[in-house]
C-alpha cells in the first residue's frame, strides 16, 4: 500500500460504490473526490478511466531550506498556544498524538493506534514504541500523562481544559469568595487517565466523546517532554520531532534545522525550515513571493488569490473546509413555521451559482444538511436542483399565492456573508419572494442570532459532522438557533453519534442528513475553502483545513 492510498479519505470507497450503483453521476463523483483531496486524474483512475499524471510529484530530493512566510509568534508554552502559527513552528519539534491530514481525517502520529468501548467512554491509546526525545529519553505513557495533568490544571490556563472537558470535574476549593459562596475549581477528574503500561494509556471519560482523537490533534495538544513544567519552552525545546529550533526571534524569524537523528516516520528531506515574519500587510508577502524570498505561506485570503495566481511559478492550493454560512429560518416564527415556505426558499437556490459569484467558485456546494464533504462520515445525497415551479407551488399551498416578503439579518463583515444573502435574495425573486437584507455590525447580530426569525450565521470548521449537528440542531441545545425540534432527528443523531466506526456511522448519517434537508430549516449553499500559496519548486505540501504545516515529507525540486 502506498502512502497515498493509506491516507485516502474513508468516504472514497463509498463514493466509488455510489457511482457504480448510479446514485451519483460521474461529474459529482469527481467533484466530491476532489474535495476529499483526490486529484481529478486519480479520481478518474479509480473508476477505470486513464490516469494522466499519476506521479507528477517526482522522486524526492534531500536537502534545501523551505522558506515560509508566516507571523512568528512567541512559543513559550505549548499548552497555552492560541494561534495556529505557534503550532506550526512547534509541530516540527514536538508532535501530537494524532494528526488531521489533508483529507480532514485523524491519523495516528505519536499514538500508533487507539480503540474505544461501545459506550465511547473508555479509550485506549497505544503509543508508538522506540521514539526518542532529543535529549535521549524514551517517549512513553509518562509523557502523555504529564501533559494531560498540566493541561487540565487550572493554573496552567490551557484551552485544553475545555477541549477535554469530558475528563474534568468541577469541585469546591474549600475557600469562600467575597459573597460567602464557595469557590469552585475545575480539574482533572480522578481516575480519568490510567497508565496501563509504558506505552499504553487509557482514558476514562465521564461522558461519551466521539471526537477525542480529533481533539488530540489541535495545536495546544502537542506533547512536550514530561519534565517540561512551565517556564520558556523555546529556551530548551526538547522534542521527538524531526527538527530542532536553531534560531528564534518573535516577529522576525524561526529557523528549524533537521536533527541529526533518524525520525520514527522515516526519511525527512528538508535540511531547514525558515519561518519569516512579513508582518500583516498582504502586499509585503506578495512582494516576497514575487522576488523569490519565500516559498510558501500560512494563508492566502480569498481576495489575494487572483493576484497570487498572476505571479509566475506560484501555485495556490486550496482546502475545502467545513466552514459555512447558513441562512437559517426559525421554525417557531411566522412565516417559517410553515414547512412549505422553508422548502420554497430551498427550491429557489442554484448552489453552484452562489458559490461562483460569492466565493469565486472556491469551495464545495452545500445541500442544507450542514455536514461537509470533508467530514469523514459525510454521506452523499442527490443534489438539490433549482426549481421555480416547485417553489411557486409550495408558496401557493402555504397560502402565499401572490408572493411573500422576508427580511434576513446579516453581519456587515466579512463581506462574503452579506454577498451570499444578496445572491439568495436575487434567486428567490422569480418565485415571488421579496427578500430584504438587514445588514448590521457583528456585535449587534451576535446579540440576536438566537432570536431573529431569519438570520445568516457563519459556523466554523469542526472535525466531525456530528459535532456540528449536536451543537446546532438537536432539540433544546443552547446554540439551536432555528429552534428545530424533531425527535426523529435527535434519535438518528444519537444513533450516529454512538458509532465509532466511520463507515457504520455514515449509513446512519445519510438518514440524519436527509431528515434535516427535508425539514429545510437552513439554506446552506456552500462550504468555504482556505488557501495556501507555494512556489512550484516546493513538493509534497498541501493546504490543511486548520492551516497546519506538515513538512516532514516535503522536499524542494
Amino acid at each position: 500500500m502506498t502512502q497515498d492510498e493509506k491516507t485516502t479519505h474513508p468516504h472514497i470507497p463509498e463514493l466509488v460504490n455510489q457511482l457504480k450503483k448510479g446514485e451519483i453521476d460521474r461529474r459529482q463523483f469527481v467533484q466530491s473526490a476532489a474535495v476529499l483531496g483526490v486529484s481529478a486524474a486519480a479520481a478518474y483512475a479509480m473508476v477505470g478511466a486513464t490516469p494522466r499524471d499519476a506521479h507528477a510529484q517526482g522522486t524526492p530530493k534531500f536537502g534545501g531550506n523551505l522558506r515560509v512566510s508566516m507571523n512568528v509568534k512567541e512559543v513559550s508554552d505549548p499548552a497555552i498556544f492560541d494561534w495556529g502559527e505557534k503550532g506550526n513552528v512547534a509541530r516540527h519539534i514536538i508532535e501530537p498524538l494524532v494528526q488531521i491530514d489533508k483529507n480532514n481525517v485523524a491519523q495516528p502520529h505519536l499514538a500508533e493506534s487507539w480503540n474505544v468501548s461501545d459506550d465511547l467512554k473508555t479509550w485506549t491509546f497505544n503509543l508508538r514504541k522506540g521514539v526518542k526525545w532529543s535529549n535521549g529519553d524514551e517517549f512513553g505513557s509518562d509523557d502523555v500523562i504529564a501533559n494531560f495533568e498540566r493541561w487540565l490544571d487550572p493554573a496552567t490556563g490551557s484551552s485544553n481544559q475545555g477541549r477535554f472537558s469530558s475528563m474534568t470535574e468541577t469541585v469546591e476549593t474549600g475557600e469562600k469568595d467575597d459573597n460567602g459562596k464557595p469557590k469552585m475549581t475545575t480539574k482533572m477528574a480522578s481516575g480519568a487517565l490510567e497508565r496501563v503500561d509504558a506505552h499504553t494509556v487509557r482514558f476514562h471519560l465521564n461522558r461519551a466523546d466521539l471526537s477525542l482523537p480529533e481533539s488530540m490533534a489541535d495545536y495546544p495538544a502537542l506533547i512536550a517532554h514530561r519534565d517540561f513544567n512551565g517556564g520558556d519552552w523555546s529556551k530548551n525545546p526538547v522534542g521527538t520531532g524531526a527538527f530542532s529550533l536553531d534560531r528564534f526571534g518573535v516577529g522576525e524569524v524561526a529557523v528549524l534545522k533537521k536533527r541529526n537523528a533518524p525520525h520514527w516516520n522515516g526519511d525527512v528531506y528538508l535540511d531547514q525550515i525558515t519561518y519569516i515574519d512579513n508582518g500583516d500587510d498582504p502586499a509585503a508577502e506578495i512582494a516576497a513571493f514575487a522576488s523569490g524570498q519565500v516559498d510558501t505561506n500560512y494563508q492566502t485570503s480569498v481576495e489575494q488569490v487572483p493576484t497570487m495566481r498572476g505571479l509566475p511559478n506560484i501555485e495556490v492550493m486550496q482546502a475545502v473546509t467545513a466552514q459555512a454560512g447558513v441562512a437559517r429560518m426559525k421554525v417557531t416564527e411566522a412565516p417559517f413555521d410553515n414547512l412549505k415556505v422553508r422548502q420554497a426558499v430551498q427550491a429557489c437556490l442554484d448552489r453552484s451559482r452562489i458559490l461562483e459569484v460569492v466565493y469565486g467558485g472556491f469551495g464545495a456546494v452545500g445541500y442544507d444538511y450542514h455536514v461537509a464533504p470533508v467530514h469523514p462520515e459525510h454521506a452523499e445525497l442527490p443534489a438539490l436542483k433549482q426549481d421555480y415551479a416547485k417553489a411557486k407551488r409550495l408558496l401557493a399551498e402555504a397560502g402565499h399565492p401572490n408572493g411573500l416578503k422576508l427580511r434576513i439579518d446579516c453581519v456587515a463583515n466579512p463581506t462574503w456573508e452579506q454577498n451570499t444573502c444578496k445572491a439568495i435574495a436575487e434567486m428567490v425573486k422569480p418565485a415571488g419572494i421579496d427578500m430584504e437584507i438587514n445588514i448590521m455590525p457583528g456585535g449587534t447580530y451576535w446579540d440576536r442570532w438566537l432570536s431573529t426569525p431569519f438570520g445568516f450565521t457563519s459556523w466554523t470548521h469542526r472535525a466531525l459532522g456530528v459535532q456540528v449537528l449536536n451543537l446546532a440542531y438537536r432539540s433544546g441545545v443552547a446554540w439551536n438557533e432555528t429552534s428545530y425540534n424533531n425527535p426523529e432527528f435527535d434519535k438518528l443523531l444519537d444513533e450516529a453519534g454512538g458509532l465509532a466506526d466511520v463507515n457504520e456511522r455514515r449509513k446512519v448519517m445519510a438518514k440524519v442528513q436527509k431528515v434535516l434537508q427535508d425539514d429545510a430549516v437552513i439554506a446552506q449553499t456552500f462550504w468555504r475553502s482556505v488557501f495556501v500559496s507555494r512556489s512550484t519548486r516546493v513538493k509534497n505540501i498541501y493546504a490543511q483545513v486548520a492551516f497546519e504545516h506538515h513538512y516532514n515529507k516535503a522536499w524542494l525540486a
Partner: protein
Amino acid sequence: MLLFISKRFGLMVLTMLIVSLLLFVLLELQPGNVATKVLGPYSSEEQRTLWLEANGYLKPLWTRYLSWLGGMVTGDFGESIRFKTPVADILWPRLWNSAILAFWTFAILVPLSLTLGVLAGMREGSALDRAISITSIITTSVPEFASAVFLSAIFVFSLGLLPGTSGMTDGFDPLQLFLPVMVLILYDVGYVTRMTRASMAEVMTTPYIRTAVLKGLPFRRVVFRHALRNALIAPFTVIMLQVNWLLSGVIVVEFFFAYKGFGGLLLEASLNQDIFLIEACTMVAVFVAVSTQTLADIGYTYLNPRIRLS
C-alpha cells in the same frame, strides 16, 4: 542661556510625566483585559483570576503605576505579552534598525534637499526654481503607501532587481534597504526642499544681499559667504523635526516592506494590545519628540544671533 536650557529640560520632563500617567490609566485600568489577552478567549474565569494574582495585577492602581514608572526610568519596561521576553530585548534592536534606516535616509535626504532648495531659492522664479518646485510638490503629494506600491511594481515585479521585502532574515543586506530608503526620500525631499527654498528666497531679498550684489561681488560669493548661513537656520529646525517623523511616522514604509523597525513594532504592539510594549514604545517616541524639539529650540537660539543676544 543656561536658565533657558534648564527651563526647556524641566518642561520636557513634565511633558513626559503627564504622558506616562495618561498612558498608564488608559491601558491598565482594566486588568481583566490583560488576562484575556494573555490566556486567550477560551480561558475560564478561574484561569484568568489565577493569572492576574500571579502577575501582581490585583494590587492597587497607584502602587502599580509607581512601580511601573520606576521600572521605566531604570530601563525595565516589563515583559511583552506578544513576545514573551523583556520589552527592552526587542525595543533596542528595533530602535537600532530604525536608526539605520533613518541614517541612510538622512545621509541622502539632507544634502539633496538643501542643494535643491538653495538652487531653487537663489533665483526665485527662474526656470530651475519652477522645475524644482513643481517636482517637489508632486513627490510630496504622493503618499508613501502609493509610492511604495509604485516603486515595488517597477523594481520588484517588473524588473526583478530588488528584493520585495526587507526583513533582513539572514543578517544585514544593503540591497534590502534600497526600496524603503527610496520611498522615504521621495516623500520627504520635496518638503525639506520647499522649506529651504522659501528660506533662501527670503534671504535673497534682504537689503544686505542687495548691497553685496550691488557692491559687485560675484554671485557665487554672495550665495556662499552671505546668503547661505542665514538661509539654513530655518531648514535646521525642519530637519530636526524629521527625526521624529523617521521614528514613528515611517510605520507605513516599515509595514509595507516588513522592515523590522520601531514603527512596525509600535503598530504590532497596538494591533495585539501588547500593553507593556505600547507603553515603552510610546514613551520612547515621546522622549524623542520632546528632545528633538528641545534641541531644535536650543540650536535655533544658538544659530540665530538676534534671539541669542536678546
